[in-house]
């Protein structure tokens, strides 16, 4: 078994039009910027993939990463908790002109919906959003005298994640708080592609230190010196 992929371009070839694509990260930490940019390169060269639904905590910052996908016109819908960042213009302008759809989900509910999909749980009840506009139209049920809102799992066709170490079986570790949504997204997508800062041989990760077991990962591509979104946005880069 060898899940390693030779280059970024090869890692993104399967993403198809109309796909639901989960993208890990919280802000720039854990954001697979290089994978995203490889997908944008493919779109620019071929016109595909388009009409994507992107799942992320945010809706892009500045002009790189998800913001660049939105600018390129590949994204039809964003599912996120917080579509505001220090530089949200890429999303904001498309949203206000009606070119992009938004599904707003409370952050913990977003994360749990993703986990539920990965765990084979079609729905669950949460106290979050009860009595607010975000629970309108959803089933409410009482448990032990308290009301809860039914939320559905959130599945994806693909997930892009960023990890620190990856091995040929797809076992992953993460750096610091770059873990965030990545482990749950790995579980929830039919196909998960991880960009890793370093690939190591089998046995190169202590089994006790594996955070995402390889069963949740389909492809591993090495990006040895990933650049942080924050640095690139501050430098005014636009992809």
């Amino acid at each position: 078994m060898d899940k390693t992929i030779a280059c970024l371009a090869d890692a993104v070839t399967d993403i198809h039009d109309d796909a639901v694509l989960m993208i890990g990260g919280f802000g720039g930490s854990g954001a697979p910027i290089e994978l995203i940019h490889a997908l944008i390169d493919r779109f620019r060269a071929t016109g595909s993939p388009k009409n994507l639904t992107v799942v992320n905590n945010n809706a892009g910052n500045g002009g790189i990463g998800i913001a660049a996908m939105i600018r390129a016109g590949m994204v039809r819908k964003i599912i996120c908790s917080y579509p505001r960042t220090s530089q949200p213009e890429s999303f904001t302008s498309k949203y206000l002109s009606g070119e992009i759809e938004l599904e707003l989900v409370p952050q913990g509910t977003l994360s749990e919906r993703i986990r539920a999909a990965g765990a084979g749980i079609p729905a669950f009840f949460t106290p979050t959003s009860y009595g607010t506009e975000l629970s309108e139209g959803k089933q409410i049920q009482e448990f032990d005298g308290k009301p809860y809102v039914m939320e559905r799992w959130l599945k994806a066709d693909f997930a892009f994640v960023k990890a620190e170490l990856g091995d040929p079986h797809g076992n992953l570790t993460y750096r610091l708080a770059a873990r965030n949504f990545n482990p749950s997204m790995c579980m929830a997508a039919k196909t998960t592609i991880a960009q890793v800062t370093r690939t190591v041989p089998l046995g190169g990760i202590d089994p006790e230190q594996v955070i995402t077991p390889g069963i949740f990962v389909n492809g591993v591509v090495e990006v040895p010196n990933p650049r942080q979104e924050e640095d690139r946005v501050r430098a005014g880069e636009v992809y």
Partner: protein
Amino acid sequence: MGWQKLTNAQIAWRAAQDIEDGAYVNLGIGFPEMVAKFQPEGRDVIYHSENGILGFGEAPPEGEEDWDLINAGKKAVTLNPGASIFHHTDSFAMVRGGHLDVAILGAYQVAQNGDLANWRIGTKGIPAVGGAMDLVHGAGRVAVVTDHVTKDGKPKLVESCSFPLTGVGCVTRVYSSLAVVDIEAGRFVLREKLARISMDELQSLTGAPLHLDGNVGDLVTPDLS
């Protein structure tokens, strides 16, 4: 009026005095983050960040930021000894699962039954909720730090919220610029107020009745300016 309202720093200081040794605490983005600065000495308090950190510390010096180590407000932080890192879903399990002792949040409005409005003011613009609706559920105490009135003088402690709700019946205590108010059995109970503000004046700046239950203490803080 012979009184001066508390500054945000003073409100944060007052809220910090009630955080007990050994508490696990989430501070909302913005003003509530200031509470950490005033943690009384000798207390070991562990701060939770929604993106998967327990035990984060102060911001690193400028130029030494590691952008893989940020808090929920996307500001660079450091780790204190004994910190731990985990993924988002576990992080919100800590929130909703009742594992946090205290959450301290900002507010546009708090109603006398504990309803909180703190995520959007109207229906215009881009809606963004983040973790606000999750954080109001599960913590042992959900406290609010806020000015007592809006910039144009309207009460923020109200009979019922006119802004979109973040959560229903969730707030347990309000630390305002004029008073400390508990929410008990669907009503505001005044615990402390600035010594120089009269009951009548405080009530006139509050959008629902302030009830008394025993002594009202003086709200006293250091100068901090």
